[in-house]
């Protein structure tokens, strides 16, 4: 086993928790990868902020219709039973709690459920998109992320240092090393890589990992 999961493997693991027929929004970028790892026999219905429900994969290159795109401005296709709607109706679905799952990326997640994923500080051009809406938009808001930054610093922290996207909004985190729930403002460890000791995991985590019940092995296929 490699010493951490790849992004594709993290996305695979997150996909295993999406129920059949769930309504799901995947944040732009890395989270979009979750769609292709739905377990056999399950079919989620995907929502995109710009006004489509039940869209499918990208069309072959050269067959794009640029009036049929997702929130990341990628060309998509439609599945049978798709619907178009305007932006206020789209965010009524989000803000109104009609989605079952939203899966987002993260710069930092704090043990109190706070998420920072839109701004790395005052430099450059700020851009927020739909992130601040989505964190209040689903019955379950999950994060997928590498466990540490590219400099090796913890991304799971006691309190976020970067500008917040939302307060107390994250309920589960899938990382390259572990699966962690946020319960009563604490990180509760559910799964970790088999080859990794609890001490090693704690050492790269910025807040205490609570043990409550069995810790399963985090496993994902080679992808």
């Amino acid at each position, binding site marked *: 086993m490699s010493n951490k999961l790849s992004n594709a493997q993290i996305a695979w693991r997150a996909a295993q928790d999406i129920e059949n027929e769930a*309504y799901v929004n995947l944040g732009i970028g890395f989270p979009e990868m979750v769609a292709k790892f739905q377990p056999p026999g399950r079919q989620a219905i995907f*929502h995109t902020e710009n006004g*489509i429900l039940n869209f499918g994969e990208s069309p072959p290159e050269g067959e794009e219709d640029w009036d049929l795109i997702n929130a990341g401005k990628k060309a998509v296709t439609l599945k049978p039973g798709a619907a*178009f*709607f305007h932006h206020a109706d789209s*965010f009524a679905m989000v803000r109104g709690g*009609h989605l079952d799952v939203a899966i987002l990326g993260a710069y930092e997640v704090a043990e109190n459920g706070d998420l920072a994923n839109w701004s790395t500080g005052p430099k450059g051009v700020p851009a927020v998109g739909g992130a601040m809406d989505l964190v209040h938009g689903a019955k379950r808001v999950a994060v997928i992320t590498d466990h540490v930054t590219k400099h090796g610093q913890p991304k799971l922290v006691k309190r976020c240092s970067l500008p917040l996207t939302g307060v107390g909004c994250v309920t589960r985190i899938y990382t390259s090393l572990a699966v962690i729930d946020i319960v009563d403002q604490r990180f509760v460890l559910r799964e970790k890589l088999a080859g990794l000791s609890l001490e090693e995991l704690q050492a790269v985590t910025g807040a205490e990992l609570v043990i409550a019940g069995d810790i399963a092995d985090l496993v994902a296929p080679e992808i």
Partner: protein
Amino acid sequence: MDKTVPDLAAALADIADGMTLMIGGFGGAGAPIELIHALIDRFRATGGPTNLTIVNNNAGNGRIGIAAMIDAGMVAKMICSFPRSADPRAFTEKYLAGQIELELVPQGTLAERIRAGGAGIPAFYTPTSYGTDLAKGKPEAEFDGRMYVQERWLKADVALIKAELADRQGNLTYRKAARNFSPLMAAAAGLTVVQAMRVVEPGAIDPEQVITPGLFVNRIVEIADAQQEEALMRAGVAYS
């Protein structure tokens, strides 16, 4: 994904005493008569559901639909804008006898409160009712030199609505002005139950022509020969 259920009884399962029900329709246009009458049948057979709060623009007409629910004694409270009709006996008698509660809401505010309930907007400001008896006790605020009343969202446990077409995923269209409150109620209820004139396969409704997207719908029952409340009224039908 198939949200169709075999019959009215299955469609109405889990509707319990004390719940708030939004019922689509404006007058007879869009009134889900078969769903309502099946719920009355259940009440007669089992004694429940009762003590219901009903949200609709009106408070029933004649001895059918919502009026028949009131006659049957299932309704504790009406939230509506206009509890009058060609034949408002059912509500009027109970109201004057103090046996039913009324929350009177201006029609546009009622629509917007339901829309807010579905859209996750807990409160909004409107000019409607400012300075009137219906604004009493509500917060007021000034914006750009004009006074407004704060209104709260309205949600329900269940919505009962009537659609023209429904695909199995719950995408809906409505017939003419039978649309009225139904798309709003579908979004504002925890459980949305639809009677459709026709159930079609996913893909049969043009995605640009869907009025209520399927994620707002939980159960669909096909009632191909659905009755129109106004036509029943004019035929002198009574369900009480």
